[in-house]
């Protein structure tokens, strides 16, 4: 969240400063490529710099962790670059640096993610090294214990980090009995108990060709990219895309408080959202932009920060998991004033639920959303991440070209329809701190 900002009513003087013309669409050509080995992926060829970005998401992730081993997928992912094939952790790092390649591995509730940035010089060797990490991680005892120690150290620190506590509590409450109730990083008990055999099993379960969504952006043509993708994924089993267990639809209403001795309370609020493939998703997205998604131009920022000085940051966003769809938000306010912040947020929620959004607010939101779309595509790495997300959500190859038209087509009637989704009394809220007046 940035340092300052604003948003006030526009006066006549500034109307002249605003262009009304539509923004240029992102000039990006996406190809759908089928590799010789049969993997379908998206490619953007960009020859301007001698780099290739590869982004992979393996469906599944932490939601497939056994109930008594939360954090298993995350620990497995963290160990992928800690020794593979005939290289131990140190030798692997040296080989990677020798090639000037950069690899990142992570796990979230729904996926294990891999990001690779490789030079065109030595590309085949970089891809082979990445393939070794994905197919043949060693899980050496030294690396397992070292990484376990690092994860546990972080989990210990999280116990008194109000943001971490609030996030864990919100999901635990909303998804009781479902895998989404657990944080992807796991728990001290779970991570302490993980065995090497369990890591090996998790690796076999989570990384497979069928579970992979892949994007390539950079200085490679389709033929080269196909060979590259096969080289990276070639060592993995075919596997299958994992099933999704639907989560409870509606988080419990009301406020849960967890006491923590900090001067400022952290609140997370949320409610049921809309699936990404719902016909009203785009109107809901635009609506949320006006409420709390638009940074300094959002209503929450205006009411909570600019008018009342109650917080440095306040925001909301549409959160879509494979088995649950949410509208989530957060605010941080001094213990004595957090109740006021939450009341202001509820009031704004109610205002949109009852009144919808007027035409001029909608137009301003559209101008931002359509104009800023191009800002997402100014680097290979950003484009690759977008392409993976677009494939996972089944948005289609032409989405990037029609997306701004979809935004432009949203009407105040559309917003009025989706605004019925907003449930100010049903908001599920957790507060961590020593809040007064709640």
């Amino acid at each position, binding site marked *: 969240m940035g340092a*300052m900002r604003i948003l006030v009513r*526009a006066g006549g003087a500034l109307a002249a400063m605003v262009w009304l013309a539509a923004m240029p669409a992102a000039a990006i050509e996406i190809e759908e490529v089928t590799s010789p080995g049969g993997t379908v992926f998206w490619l953007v060829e960009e020859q301007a710099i001698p780099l290739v970005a590869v982004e992979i998401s393996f469906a599944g992730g932490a939601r497939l962790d056994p109930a008594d081993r939360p954090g298993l997928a995350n620990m497995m992912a963290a160990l992928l670059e800690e020794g593979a094939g005939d290289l131990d952790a140190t030798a692997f790092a040296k080989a990677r640096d020798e090639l000037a390649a950069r690899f990142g591995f992570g796990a979230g509730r729904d996926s294990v993610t891999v990001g690779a940035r490789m030079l065109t010089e030595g590309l085949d060797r970089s891809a082979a090294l990445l393939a070794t990490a994905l197919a043949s991680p060693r899980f050496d005892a030294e690396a397992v214990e070292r990484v376990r120690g*690092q994860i546990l150290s972080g989990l210990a620190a999280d116990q008194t980090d109000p943001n971490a506590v609030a996030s864990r509590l919100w999901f635990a409450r909303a998804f009781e009995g479902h895998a989404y109730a657990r944080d992807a990083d796991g728990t001290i008990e779970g991570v302490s108990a993980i065995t090497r055999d369990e890591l090996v099993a998790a690796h076999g379960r989570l990384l497979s060709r069928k579970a992979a969504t892949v994007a390539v952006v950079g200085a490679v043509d389709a033929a080269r990219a196909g060979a590259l993708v096969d080289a990276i994924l070639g060592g993995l089993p075919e596997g299958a895309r994992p099933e999704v267990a639907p989560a409870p639809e509606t988080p419990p209403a009301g406020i849960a408080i967890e006491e923590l001795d900090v001067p400022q309370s952290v609140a997370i609020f949320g409610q049921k959202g809309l699936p990404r493939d719902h016909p009203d998703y785009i109107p809901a997205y635009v609506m949320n932009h006006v409420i709390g998604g638009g940074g300094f131009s959002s209503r929450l920022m205006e009411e909570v920060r600019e008018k009342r000085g109650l917080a440095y940051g306040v925001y909301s966003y549409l959160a879509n998991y494979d088995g649950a769809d949410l509208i989530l938000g957060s605010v941080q306010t*001094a213990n004595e004033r957090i109740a006021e912040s939450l009341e202001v947020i509820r009031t704004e929620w109610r205002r949109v639920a009852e009144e919808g959004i007027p035409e001029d607010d909608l137009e301003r939101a559209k101008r931002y959303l359509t104009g800023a779309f191009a800002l997402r595509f*100014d680097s290979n790495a950003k484009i690759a991440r977008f392409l993976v997300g677009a494939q996972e959500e089944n948005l289609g190859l032409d989405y990037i070209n029609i997306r701004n038209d979809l935004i432009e087509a949203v009407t105040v009637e559309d917003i009025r329809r989706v605004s019925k989704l907003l449930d100010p009394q049903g908001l599920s809220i957790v507060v961590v701190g020593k809040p007064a007046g709640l």
Partner: protein
Amino acid sequence: MQSGMVVRLVALVGFLLPAIAMAAQPITTFRLGNGMEVVVIEDHRAPVVTHMVWYRTGAADEPWGHSGIAHFFEHLMFKGTDDIPEGAFSKIVAENGGQDNAFTSWDYTGYFQRIAADRLDLVMKMEADRMRDLVLNERVVATERDVILEERNSRTDNDPGALFQEQMRAALYMNHPYGVPIIGWRHEIEALGLPEALAFYRRFYAPDNAILVVAGDVAPDEVRRLAEIHYGPLEPSGNPADARPQEPPQLAARRIEMRDARVRQPYVMRHYLAPAYDPADPGTAAALTVLAKVLGQGITSRFAQQIEIADRVAVSTGAFYSDTARDAVPFTVFGVPAPGRTLAEVEAALDAEIARIIAEGPTAEELERIRRKTRTDLIHARDDVGGLARVYGAALAVGLSTEDVDRWPDVVDAVTAEDVRAAAERWLVPARSVTGYLMGAEGEAG
């Protein structure tokens, strides 16, 4: 970086600026008649531009006792001008599909917009307008002070690690204002008001104290034309910052212990006072940069190999040095004990590795690995033109030139094993250091 650069640009401590700099992207520099420096970095991959104005003024230039005014003022720059209604600045940017923000560090304050390239004229006009024509009142100042106190809560007071970092710096700098937190001490923020803000503005916000960086899908000639229209007419202030108080000889190793009931993961950290990049002697900064990497960056570093892997005394270690500053900076080492290990054991392990490098210097293999990585980092840096804009902006803001940035790989190439050894011996000196233990309410005593 705790409240380091107050914003999104945040890296962790010690992100090395020149090391990621240098592009094959064409870079053009020139200066306007009123003294404003301009850097243009071309990248035509996307029809987007990053427009930044950096002021060579930061928290270290604040009047004594008014800590936080540089950052406070940064917030106030979004309020309104004689031409732009109160609160409209960011709104206009957003309505044009752009994003904007700002950041404050000890040495500089920067403002930027990311927007479609055909809107450069608009954001330049607005940025030039608020350089001289800001309009403030008591009401907006009072509300923003509340926002900043909440920002301080979020960044610092809610996080014992951030409070500890604040104490560490305050102990390291005995006289130089780098020891004062960027966001300011709470009791001084509470006392800041309109007069302090206006005085700061009139003094420092002027073209001869500013650097314009434009990066993206632009042509240098067009940037020059627009800059001359919008920034060219602004009057210089001719009012440079006062020379800052400098450190006296540091003669005593300092130690601090902080206990906070919220701390669940204790750690030990040490700052040594080390020189920043000096164009007359770039080799020293390069040697210290190499030293930090050899000691404590990545699994191939000595700390990781010996303390984490071989001896299992710590679960995490590191060494950082960030040379892009006007005055002396911290060279930092830290370690997080493994279960059953003490802070004293970790400190001793760090000391042993420091002693070893002072005795032996780095190996040829270590040196070669780092030289190579310095060069290849530049290729990766080309995928992030906004990052390049920040590198050049920060360098110019602390008094360096684009040439200083561009020659960095050559400077690193020239570093010898003896240079690194000698830098360790000269600068990793206990008398110029502060060592801190961050601990929970109970448990190990220092």
